[in-house]
C-alpha cells in the first residue's frame, strides 16, 4: 500500500518536472501607457531556442518602427549544489514611435519552438498627447536643480473612496509619481490617520506607469493601508511627506572636453508633500434598531446551543459565530440575557480575520460560559445581532432560536429562594430595571385646584377664631373678676355684717326673745367666718373654723373662745338659762370678733 503511494507521488513529481521543462513562455513586454513623440521599446522574449526565422513580428499599426528587430540571445548554465540548470533566452526588440494619440493594440507575434507555434498575448498601448511644458525650453541646461520642475516629482495619497459609512473600509495608498530617475527615498512620514483604524496591507512593489494631469509618470507605491473610519463627519487626512533624491544628467556640450564631451551626474533632493484629503463619513440612516451596535458589512451567524438538560452548579456555554465581511474587528458581543439564577462569566472571543485590500473578512466566535445555580426550567430568549449593510443601505437583524434549559438538582444545591425574577443569595435584592409606576385607578374624585390660604374665606375663618377667642376671653375674665369682687366685698364687709347681725341679736335681747337672740348670734358667728374666709356656710364646722383661724395666725385660745360662743349659743337656743347669759355671750362675741379682726389685719 505504501509502495503504491510512493510510486504515485514519484510519477506526479516526474510529470510535473517534465511539464515545467516543456513549458515555453513567449511574452511581450511593452509599456501600457506612453505619450506621442516618445519612442518606446517592445520586447518579445522566449525562454527556449526558437527555430530559425520562425519569429513573425506583428504589424505595428499606429506606430512607426524606428529600429528593430534586434535580436539578443543568452544562454546560461548554473551549477548549484551539484545540480545543473540551464536557461536560454532570446529577445527581439523593436523601438516604436507612436503616430498619434489613442488606444492601439500590438497584435500577437508568433514563434516556433521545437515544431510548436507560440504566440504572445495582445498588448494594449495607450498613447496620450502629453501636455507641453512651457518651462522646458526656458530651462537652463546648466543648472541641475532647474532640470527637475515641480511637476516632475509628485507625492499623492490615493484613496479608494471618499464617501462611506462609519465601519466601512477604504484603501489608501501613498504613491510617488516621477518623471526623473529616483535614486533614493527617505524620511517617509505617513500622516496620522486620526479617526481611522488603520492596517498596513502587503502590496507588490513594482513600478508602473500612470497618467496624471495629462502627463505620464513612473509610479512607485510607498505604502498601502486599509482605513476604517471610527467617527462620522468629515475627516481630513493630513499631508504625507518624504524626501527624494533624483539623478540629473547634465550635458556640457563638450565645453570641458572637446573630444568626448562630458556628461555630469548631479543629485537633486526634493521634499515632497501630498495634498490633504477629506473623507466624508456618512451617518447611518435613521431607523436603527435598538440593538444596533455599529456593525457594518454583510454577515451571517451560526450558533451552538448548550445542552438542553444540565445539572445545577455545572458549567455550560453558548456559542455564536458571526462570519462575513465588514468591520469584524469592531464587533461587540451580542447580548445574551440569562435568568438571574445563572452566573454568566466573561465572554470569550476567538477571531479569524483576514485583511485584504477590499476590507476585512472572516469570522468571530463568541463563547458565553455560564453556571446554573438554581434548579428548574428556564427559557432563554433569542440572541440578536443587528448590522447595517452599506450596499443595500438597510439594517438587518439576525437572531438565534430561543431555547429552554432544564436544570436538574445536583443534590447539593441549597436552592436559593427565587421570588419572581429576583433571586436572593443572602445579599440585598438588586434593582434589575426601572419603569414608571402604574396609573391610579381609584374613582375620579373631584378636587379643585384652588388654594385656600390667604383667600377671604381663610381670613374670615381666622378672624372668626380670633373673635371667638376674644369673646370667650372677655366673658370668662369678666365672670372671674366679678366672682373675685363679690368675695372681696364680702370679706371686707364681714365684720360689718357681723355687727349688723349682732345689733339685731341685741334688739332681740332687749325684747327678751331668747330664741331669736341666739339664732341671730349663731347667724352672725357663722356668717362672719363664711364671709371672711369665703367658705359656704353649709361647709362650716367648728373644726374647719379652728383650722381656718389657725391658718390665719389667730391664736388657738381665741379660736377656742369663738367656738365656745357658738357651742354656748347652740345650747342656749333651746335650753333655759340665766338672764345675764345673753349679755355675756353678746359682749364676748363682740370682743372675740374684734380681736380676730385685729389679729388677721396684723
Amino acid at each position, binding site marked *: 500500500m505504501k509502495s503504491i503511494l510512493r510510486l504515485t507521488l514519484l510519477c506526479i513529481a516526474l510529470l510535473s518536472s517534465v511539464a515545467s521543462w516543456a513549458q515555453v513562455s513567449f511574452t511581450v513586454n511593452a509599456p501600457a501607457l506612453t505619450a506621442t513623440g516618445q519612442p518606446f521599446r517592445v520586447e518579445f522574449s522566449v525562454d527556449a531556442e526558437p527555430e530559425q526565422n520562425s519569429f513573425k513580428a506583428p504589424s505595428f499599426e499606429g506606430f512607426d518602427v524606428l529600429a528593430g528587430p534586434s535580436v539578443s540571445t543568452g544562454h546560461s548554465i548554473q551549477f548549484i549544489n551539484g545540480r545543473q540548470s540551464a536557461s536560454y533566452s532570446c529577445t527581439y526588440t523593436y523601438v516604436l514611435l507612436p503616430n498619434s494619440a489613442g488606444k492601439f493594440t500590438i497584435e500577437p507575434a508568433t514563434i516556433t519552438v521545437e515544431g510548436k507555434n507560440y504566440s504572445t498575448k495582445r498588448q494594449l498601448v495607450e498613447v496620450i498627447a502629453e501636455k507641453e511644458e512651457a518651462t522646458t525650453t526656458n530651462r537652463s541646461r546648466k543648472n541641475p536643480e532647474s532640470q527637475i520642475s515641480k511637476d516632475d516629482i509628485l507625492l499623492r495619497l490615493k484613496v479608494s473612496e471618499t464617501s462611506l459609512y462609519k465601519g466601512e473600509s477604504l484603501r489608501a495608498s501613498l504613491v510617488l509619481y516621477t518623471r526623473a530617475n529616483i535614486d533614493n527615498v527617505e524620511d517617509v512620514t505617513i500622516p496620522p490617520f486620526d479617526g481611522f483604524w488603520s492596517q498596513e496591507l502587503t502590496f507588490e512593489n513594482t513600478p508602473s506607469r500612470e497618467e496624471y494631469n495629462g502627463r505620464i509618470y513612473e509610479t512607485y507605491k510607498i505604502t498601502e493601508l486599509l482605513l476604517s473610519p471610527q467617527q462620522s463627519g468629515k475627516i481630513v487626512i493630513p499631508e504625507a511627506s518624504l524626501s527624494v533624491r533624483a539623478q540629473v544628467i547634465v550635458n556640457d556640450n563638450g565645453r570641458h572636453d572637446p573630444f568626448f564631451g562630458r556628461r555630469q551626474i548631479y543629485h537633486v533632493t526634493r521634499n515632497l508633500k501630498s495634498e490633504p484629503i477629506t473623507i466624508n463619513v456618512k451617518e447611518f440612516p*435613521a*431607523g436603527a434598531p435598538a440593538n444596533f451596535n455599529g456593525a457594518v458589512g454583510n454577515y451571517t451567524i451560526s450558533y451552538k446551543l448548550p445542552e438542553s438538560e444540565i445539572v445545577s452548579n455545572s458549567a455550560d456555554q453558548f456559542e455564536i459565530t458571526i462570519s462575513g465581511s465588514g468591520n469584524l474587528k469592531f464587533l461587540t458581543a451580542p447580548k445574551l440575557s440569562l435568568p438571574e439564577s445563572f452566573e454568566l462569566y466573561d465572554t470569550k472571543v476567538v477571531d479569524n480575520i483576514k485583511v485584504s485590500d477590499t476590507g476585512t473578512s472572516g469570522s468571530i466566535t463568541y463563547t458565553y460560559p455560564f453556571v446554573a445555580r438554581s434548579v428548574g426550567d428556564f427559557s432563554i430568549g433569542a440572541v440578536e445581532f443587528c448590522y447595517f449593510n452599506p450596499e443595500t443601505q438597510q439594517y438587518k437583524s439576525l437572531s438565534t432560536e430561543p431555547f429552554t434549559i432544564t436544570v436538574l438538582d445536583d443534590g447539593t444545591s441549597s436552592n436559593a429562594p427565587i421570588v419572581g425574577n429576583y433571586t436572593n443569595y443572602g445579599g440585598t435584592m438588586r434593582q434589575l430595571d*426601572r*419603569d*414608571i*409606576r*402604574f*396609573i*391610579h*385607578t*381609584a*374613582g*375620579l*374624585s*373631584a*378636587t*379643585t*385646584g384652588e*388654594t*385656600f*390660604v*390667604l383667600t377671604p*374665606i*381663610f381670613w*374670615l*375663618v*381666622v378672624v*372668626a*377664631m*380670633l373673635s*371667638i*377667642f376674644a*369673646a*370667650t*376671653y372677655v*366673658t*370668662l*375674665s369678666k365672670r*372671674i373678676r366679678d366672682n373675685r369682687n363679690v368675695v372681696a366685698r364680702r370679706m371686707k364687709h364681714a365684720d360689718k355684717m357681723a355687727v349688723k347681725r349682732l345689733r339685731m341679736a341685741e334688739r332681740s335681747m332687749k325684747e327678751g326673745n331668747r330664741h331669736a337672740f341666739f339664732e341671730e348670734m349663731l347667724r352672725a358667728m357663722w356668717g362672719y367666718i363664711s364671709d371672711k374666709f369665703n367658705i359656704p356656710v353649709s361647709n362650716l364646722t367648728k373644726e374647719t373654723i379652728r383650722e381656718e383661724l389657725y391658718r390665719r395666725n389667730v391664736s388657738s385660745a381665741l379660736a377656742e373662745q369663738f367656738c365656745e360662743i357658738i357651742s354656748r349659743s347652740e345650747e342656749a337656743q333651746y335650753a333655759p338659762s340665766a338672764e345675764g347669759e345673753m349679755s355675756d355671750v353678746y359682749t364676748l362675741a363682740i370682743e372675740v370678733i374684734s380681736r380676730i379682726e385685729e389679729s388677721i389685719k396684723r
Partner: protein
Amino acid sequence: MKSILNHITPLLLVVVAMVMPQKSSGADATTTAEALWAEGIEAYESKDYTSAVEAFSQIVNLGEANEDVYYNLANAYFKLGQHATTTRPFGSGELGRAILNYHRALRLNPAMADARYNLELAVDHTNDTESVPKSFIAVLWHSLRDSATSNGWTIASLVMLGAMLILVMFYLLSTHIVLRKVCFFVSFALLVSVITTLSLAISSRNAVLNDNRAVVLCNDTTPVHASPDSASKIIRQPSQGVTIFVERTHGDWAEIRFADGEKGWIPNSRIELI
C-alpha cells in the same frame, strides 16, 4: 356664651359651603368624565395607549381633571412613546407631554409620590441640565413644602391656631402657676408652628400662582436662540421634556431661563406652560 355660639354657627356653615367644591358644570360633565375615566383605565390596561391618551385628554378638556387624571395622562403618553416601535422612542414628542402632565399633577398635589417618581424617571430621558445646587435649608424647605398640599398646610395651621388660642385662654385665666407655665410654653411652640405651616401654605400657593415653568415640546431637540430671531446664534438645543422658566414673551417668541441660569429665546409654539 351660648349667644356667641349661636352667632358663629351660621357663619361656619357659610364658610364650609364656600370651601366645598362648586360644580358649576353640573352632573352631566361629571358623568361623562367618569365614563372617560373608566375607558382610559381600561385602554391603558390593555396597552392601547393611544386611546388612553385620548380619554384622559378629554377629561382634561372637560375641565374635570384632578391630579390623578394628569398623572394617568402622563403615564399613557410615556408608555405610548416608549412603545413606539416604528420610529425612535418618543419620536413624536410624547416624552415632553408626559413630563408636562406629571408637572401638572404635582402642581395640584405636590405630595404625589408616584408622580414625582415617574417624573424623575422621565427626566432621565431628556438632556436637561443640572440645576444650580440649592442650599441645604432651601432643599429642606422645598421638600417639606412639597410633602403636603397648600390646603393641607392651611388646615394644619388653623387647627394649631385654635389649639394655641385655647391654651392662651388657659394661660390668661388660670390661677394655677404650673398650668400657666405649661400653657405658656406649649402655646408659644404652637405659635411657631402656626407661623411655619402658614408660611409653607403661602409658599406652596405662591409656587403654584407664580409658576412660570414650561416644558419644551418637540419631536427631538429644538434650538434656543440668543435673541428672538431665527437667524441669531443657537445657544442650546434642549430635548423634548426639558423644564424651563418663561421670563417674558415678545411676539411669537418667549424668553426662557434654564435651570442653570442660562437664558435664551424659543418660539412660543415649542413650549407649554405647566
